[in-house]
C-alpha cells in the first residue's frame, strides 16, 4: 500500500482573529491507494475534492485522522516528501508562473532538489507530454490552455514521483483538448500511482481502476470502475449514471432537485433529500459495508445494505 488515509476530517475555521464555527469540508474519510494504481475521485462542486487533493500534498492539514505514505505519517517526512507526491492543478491559467519559460517551469522542481542531470530529464518529460521543441523556451503565458496543462503535467513528472494527484486537470479546457489530456493520463498512469479527481463521470471512469464517490465531504462508495459501471451500489451512484450528460437536457431522466444548492453537511447522509430510499435512519450517516467481488472488494455507506 502506497498512500493510506485513516479517518480524515478537515475543517475550516476562518481566520486567526475571526474564528467561526468549523466547516467540515471532509468528514471521516478512509481509503488507500496501491503502488501504480489509478484511483478516480468523483464528486460534484463543493464535495471536498480539492481539499482532499491538497491534503495528499500537505497543503492542507487534517483536523482529525492521519495520512500515511509507505506506512509513515506524511507530516513526519521532510522535504523529501515533495519528491514522492506531486500535484497537477485545476486551472492551467494559474498553474504556471507567467514569468517563467516552459523550460524553467519544468526545471524548477529539479533545481530545488539539487538534481544533476536536469537537461536530460526536462527534455525527457517535455517530450513525454508531447510539447514540441519550439515551445520549450517560450514564456508560459504564451501557451494555450491545453499546452499549459501539458507543461504542468511535465512539471509533476519531473521528480519521477510515486504518486501524482491531478485535481480536475481537464475541467478548465475545451472538450477536445480535455480528451487529449485524458489520453495523456491514460498513457502515463501505469508508471506511478495516480489520483485523478474529477466531477465528470465519463472522464473519471475512463482513467481510474477504482472509483471513489464523494459527496458533501463524505465517501459514499468505493468500487472497481468496472463493477461501478455495471451496477453502482449507492443510490447516488445510480443517480450519477442515470444523469450522464446527454445530447439534450430534455432527455435527462433524473432531476437535480436541490443539488445545485449547497449539499447537506450534517450528521446524516448528504444524498438523502434526493434519494428515492430516504428514510428516518438516513439522518445518521451509515457505517461501512464491505461487499466482496472477484478482484477485490467494494465498500458502500448506505442503510440499504445494512
Amino acid at each position, binding site marked *: 500500500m502506497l498512500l493510506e488515509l485513516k479517518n480524515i476530517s478537515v475543517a475550516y475555521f476562518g*481566520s*486567526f482573529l475571526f474564528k467561526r464555527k468549523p466547516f467540515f469540508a471532509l468528514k471521516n474519510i478512509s481509503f488507500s491507494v496501491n503502488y501504480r494504481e489509478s484511483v478516480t475521485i468523483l464528486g460534484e462542486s463543493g464535495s471536498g475534492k480539492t481539499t482532499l487533493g491538497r491534503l495528499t500534498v500537505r*497543503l492542507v492539514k487534517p483536523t482529525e485522522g492521519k495520512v500515511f505514505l509507505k506506512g509513515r505519517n506524511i507530516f513526519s517526512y521532510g522535504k523529501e516528501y515533495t519528491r514522492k507526491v506531486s*500535484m497537477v*492543478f485545476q486551472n492551467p491559467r494559474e498553474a*504556471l508562473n507567467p514569468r517563467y519559460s516552459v523550460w524553467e517551469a519544468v526545471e524548477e*522542481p529539479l533545481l530545488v532538489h539539487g538534481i544533476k542531470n536536469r537537461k536530460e530529464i526536462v527534455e525527457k518529460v517535455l517530450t513525454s507530454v508531447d510539447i514540441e521543441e519550439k515551445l520549450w523556451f517560450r514564456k508560459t503565458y504564451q501557451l494555450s490552455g491545453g499546452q499549459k496543462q501539458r507543461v504542468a503535467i511535465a512539471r509533476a513528472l519531473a*521528480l519521477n514521483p510515486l504518486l501524482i494527484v491531478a485535481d480536475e486537470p481537464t475541467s478548465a479546457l475545451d472538450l477536445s483538448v480535455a480528451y487529449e489530456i485524458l489520453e495523456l493520463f491514460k498513457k502515463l498512469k501505469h508508471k506511478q500511482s495516480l489520483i485523478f479527481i474529477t466531477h465528470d463521470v465519463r472522464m473519471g471512469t475512463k482513467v481510474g481502476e477504482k472509483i471513489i464517490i464523494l459527496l458533501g465531504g463524505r465517501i459514499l462508495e468505493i468500487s472497481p470502475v468496472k463493477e461501478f459501471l455495471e451496477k453502482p451500489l449507492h443510490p447516488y451512484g445510480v443517480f450519477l449514471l442515470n444523469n450522464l450528460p446527454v445530447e439534450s437536457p430534455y432527455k435527462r431522466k433524473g432531476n437535480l432537485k436541490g443539488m445545485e444548492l449547497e449539499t447537506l453537511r450534517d450528521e446524516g447522509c448528504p444524498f438523502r433529500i434526493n434519494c428515492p430510499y430516504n428514510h428516518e435512519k438516513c439522518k445518521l450517516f451509515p457505517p461501512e459495508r464491505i461487499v466482496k467481488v472477484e478482484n477485490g472488494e467494494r465498500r458502500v455507506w448506505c442503510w440499504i445494505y445494512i
Partner: protein
Amino acid sequence: MKYLALGILFTFFLLAIFADFIAPYPYDLQNREAPYHPPTRVHILDSSGRLIHPYVHPYRLVNPIFKTYKEDKSQKCKVEFFTQTPYGFKLFYTPPRCGVYLLGTDKLGRDVFSRLVYGARISLSVGLIGVGITFLLGILFGSLAGYYGGAIDAAVMRLTEVLMSIPAFYLMLTLRAIFPLDMPSVAVFFLIIFILSFVGWAGLARVIRGLILSYRSYEYVLAAKTYGASTFRIIFKHILPNTYFYLIVSATSAIPAYILGEASLSLLGLGIQEPYPSWGNMLSEARSLTVITFFPWILSPGVAIFLVVVAFNILGDTLVSDKEKIG
C-alpha cells in the same frame, strides 16, 4: 511631460553627484562684503548684440543697510570654464575681484547656487536612502505578514495601524525629541532617514501584505510548495515579482514625501545643522516676509523642492498610465 520630468530629475541628480565640480564655491565660504548679493548678471552679448564669451561685472554694495548693490561697469571679468581654482577644478569660475553668484548670496554672503547644489546631495539622498530603507522594512514585514498569516499577520497589522493612526508630522517630531539636539551632522543625517523610514514603512507593508495575500493562493505558488521550493524562493521568485511595478510606482511617489519631510524638520531647525546645507535649512532663512520681498532668490531651494517633487509625481503618474495602456 514624462521626458520633462525625467530631465529635471536627471539634472538635479547630476548636480548632486558632481557638486564639487559644478558649485563654484564651497558651501560654507562666507563673503562678508556681499551679504544678500543679488544674482549676478552674466553678459553673453556685446553692445551690438553678438554672442561673445560670457563675462560679469563686479557688484558694489551701495546701501549697507538695505543691502542694495550696483553693477560696476568699469570692470569686467571673463567667466572661465573648466578651470583650476583655489577650491579645486571647477566647471566655471571668475577671478575673486568679481563674484559669480548665479542665485545670489544669503545673509552671510554664501553663494546660494553652491549651497543649493551641495544641498541637493543631502535632500536627494535622504529621499533615496529613506525610500530604500522603507522598502526594505515594508517588504520584509509585508511579506512575513502576508505569507505566514495568523498571529504574525495580526501583530504586524496592528503595529502598522498604530503607526498610521499617529499624524506623521507629530510622530516625526516625537521621534526627533528622543534624541539630543546637538548631534554630529552625520548622525543627524542618518537619524532623519531613520525617522522618515520608521514613519513611512507601515503603509507600504500593508499594501505588500495585501498583494502577497492575493498571490499566495495562486496555483503556481501552491505548486512550488508541493515540489519543495523554499519559502524564500517562493516569495522572491513567485510572489514579489508581481509587485515590482507597484513598488516602482510607489517609490517614485514616496521620495517627495522624504524630501519634504527632511525639509520640514530642517526648516524647524531639527534637521541638518548649519553650516551644512540642505534645501530645508536653506529655506528656514526665508521665513520672514521682508527677506522674501527684498531678496527673493533666497527662495530658490523652495523652487528646487517644488520641481523635484512635481517631477517625481509626474513620473509616478505616467508610469501608471503607461502600464494601463499596455494592459
